[in-house]
């Protein structure tokens, strides 16, 4: 069920109406769990079994671990839980890539390999809820949190519908304590603006820019460098608005249902270095990778080489988390390389970015240039096309023959206008510091005017063909 569909509207109205009738917390939890399962089953009923399996395994292991003092036994329990979680993830997400790659290798080695390939459907949101349940089990193992004895609470933590299919990845330490308090519907201006902002980002910005991005990246070899640049910047805005739009809607819906979710994005395109970038982009995933992978590998506790190795492994796995495709691995590799280069420079004596405005702006531009290059690897799955686009992006061809621009179906100028509009909104958002609080404080008249304007614009700029959220595929 997609947030911007009529079914979801009905689903929300029914859910809120029933919650309005049921006042006690326990029935409300059951209702939320039941609704979350229906939300998920709308896509494919069979795959709810995976969520139930994952819930049962991690809940049981948590309970078992709490009663176990023997370190070795605790470790074995952790290994069992992680094997179950990662086994599911590997089978459903990576088996195809693994078997196809092996088949490719065998074709090189022997002329006619006999090999059976399976066509496996990827369960929506599996990467998100698997990482969520793993964080719970690891935190219980590390004794950072106490395991919950309430199966409904845990099941709701795993399946809570606002963040089930595309995050943010919420930690048990954040979510479970909220279930100990009464669940109260709290619909305020800030929550509605969060949801509206999410819709606007997705439908008005991301989906409209996608027309230009898709048109250019279909055959990147046909376009000069200037257009590749515009399309790459367009994709950077598209994926940000698509994903952070989903996060905004999820956080807003959770807020109405009485839950507080952590921020998932914080102006990533003003990051001045790679460390700063990963504190701003998909924060719930990057902090997960830091806490459960990078630190588990040793973090920066060893020498330089171990640190670089850990950074690269973390980013490679972070890339693979996005999907079973070599281009995501390359994307992770590039980000790993950028982090290593930055750390290498940072460790050198005398290296630091000055406090002046020019130095700050230059560092932002340099960082974002690197981010844009990595977005090409992320967006274009066809390797020869990816290399062509990267070459044209890095080695600018100074070809300004733009005969095809403005004619045809890629709405070139409108997309650029929307990109400029996005930049202006970002500047405004940065200037007001906390946009959510700001929007929450706006007095009623202007707030209603903004809502009407959004409705008016949404009518005319609602895309002719609706694309699902990009991060659904992960």
């Amino acid at each position: 069920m997609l947030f911007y569909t009529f079914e979801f509207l009905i689903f929300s109205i029914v859910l809120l109406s029933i919650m309005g009738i049921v006042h006690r917390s326990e029935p409300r939890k059951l209702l939320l769990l039941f609704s979350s399962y229906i939300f998920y089953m709308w896509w494919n009923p069979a795959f709810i079994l995976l969520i139930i399996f994952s819930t049962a395994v991690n809940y049981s292991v948590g309970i078992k671990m709490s009663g176990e003092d023997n370190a070795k036994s605790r470790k074995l329990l952790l290994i069992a839980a992680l094997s179950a979680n990662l086994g599911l993830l590997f089978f459903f997400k990576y088996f195809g890539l693994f078997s196809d790659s092996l088949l490719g290798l065998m074709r090189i080695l022997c002329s006619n390999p006999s090999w059976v390939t399976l066509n496996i459907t990827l369960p929506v949101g599996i990467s998100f809820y698997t990482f969520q349940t793993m964080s719970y089990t690891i935190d219980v193992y590390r004794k950072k949190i106490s395991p919950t004895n309430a199966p409904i609470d845990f099941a709701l933590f795993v399946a809570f519908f606002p963040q089930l299919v595309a995050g943010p990845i919420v930690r048990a330490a954040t979510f479970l304590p909220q279930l100990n308090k009464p669940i109260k519907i709290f619909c305020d201006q800030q929550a509605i603006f969060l949801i509206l902002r999410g819709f606007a980002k997705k439908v008005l910005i991301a989906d409209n820019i996608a027309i230009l991005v898709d048109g250019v990246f279909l055959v990147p070899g046909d376009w000069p460098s200037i257009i590749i640049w515009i399309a790459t910047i367009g994709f950077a805005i598209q994926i940000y608005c698509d994903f952070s739009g989903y996060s905004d809607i999820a956080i807003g819906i959770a807020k109405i249902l009485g839950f507080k979710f952590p921020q998932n994005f914080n102006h990533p395109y003003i990051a001045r270095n790679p460390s700063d970038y990963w504190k701003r982009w998909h924060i719930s995933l990057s902090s997960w990778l830091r806490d459960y992978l990078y630190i588990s590998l040793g973090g920066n506790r060893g020498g330089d080489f171990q640190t670089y190795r850990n950074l690269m492994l973390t980013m490679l796995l972070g890339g693979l988390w996005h999907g079973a495709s070599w281009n995501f691995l390359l994307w992770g590799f590039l980000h790993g390389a950028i982090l290593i280069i930055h750390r290498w420079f940072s460790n050198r004596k005398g290296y630091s970015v000055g406090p002046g405005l020019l130095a700050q702006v230059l560092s932002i531009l340099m960082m974002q240039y690197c981010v844009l290059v990595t977005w090409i690897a992320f967006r274009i799955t066809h390797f020869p096309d990816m290399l062509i686009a990267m070459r044209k992006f890095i080695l600018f061809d100074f070809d300004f023959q733009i005969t095809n621009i403005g004619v045809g179906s890629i709405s070139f100028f409108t997309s650029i206008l929307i990109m400029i509009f996005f930049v202006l909104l970002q500047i405004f958002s940065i200037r007001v510091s906390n946009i959510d609080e700001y929007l929450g404080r706006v007095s009623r008249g202007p707030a209603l005017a903004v809502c009407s304007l959004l409705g008016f614009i949404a009518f005319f700029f609602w895309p002719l063909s609706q694309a699902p959220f990009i991060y659904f595929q992960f």
Partner: protein
Amino acid sequence: MRKNRQQFNGMACLWMVVAVIAGVCLALSVSTWVFKKAPNDLLRTNVLLEALEDEELNPQFVVMGSSVVMSGVDTRRITSKLPGKPLGLNLATTGQNPADSYLYYQNLPKSVGLILQFTTPRFAIGKNAIELQKYNAMYMYGYRPNDNTESTLINIFGERVENIFSMSNLEQRFQSRWVVRQAADNIVRNLVRDDLNFNSYTFDLYFPNNGANRLSALEMQRSLSRRYIAEHRHDYPATEEKALFFKNAGNQASKLGKKFALIINPIHPEVHRIYGDDWYRLVRKYFNLIEESSDFYVIDASDAIGEEYFVDALHISKSGAEVLSDFLVKEIMRLNLNPTN
């Protein structure tokens, strides 16, 4: 106090939702006005619909097709060279395929004695029928199909066109939102692309060639590779559905007392190299079969003009239009299609 605050919040949320809906309703109520005022690439549709209602025009032949026909056929030149000087209109619009053209047939005045219907070979192989955006433009400019047009197209193309015809007025108005994007695109394009001039599309009923400059060799190559990617080549024979459509179009013209000729669009000679000669032979064979089983002629203009007359992969220069128009005059005379006869 606390309860009051929560109630206020709830009401505030409700008002915000109502405000969004009010914004949507306002947009819906002005959508028809916006559509008629917004500059767009299908504005010519309105010009044509109005021209067909003009009782003083009395055209005797019409030419229908896409922007290739807009750039490549000068009906004034044809009129001047045909005996009896029959008045001809160029009713081509951007991206108009033969199914789109068919929608206009019901509106043709009685004075029209000949329909010259252009088609691309590709139209015959695809699943495409009426294009929603073009139909939407016609609808928003006041066109409504009659029962005969609807039933003929539904019989041939099934639910693909039935879905379009069955859209309600509200749905069509919501669908028409594309015009705002295109208006924004057109306004900026007019400001930054002084080399492009589409003004003639909005008034010229005879030869709306925009006088585009010929592309450089590099750009021409890009334009060709964008348009004719070798992988896009589809093998003929084409679909039976399209053959049936062409026959119906011819029959409909006969019923309306008009002569009809199906013309294969001029194609850039480089496409021969990209798609191969075999492909061309199959295209010709397909259209020959249609001609043999119908009461109308198929005119092959695919190689009627040389490479030097193309301004890009598709469109034709003004001098190329002279060549193509003269070719049509010759064919009309040869096949005895002159409406004044």
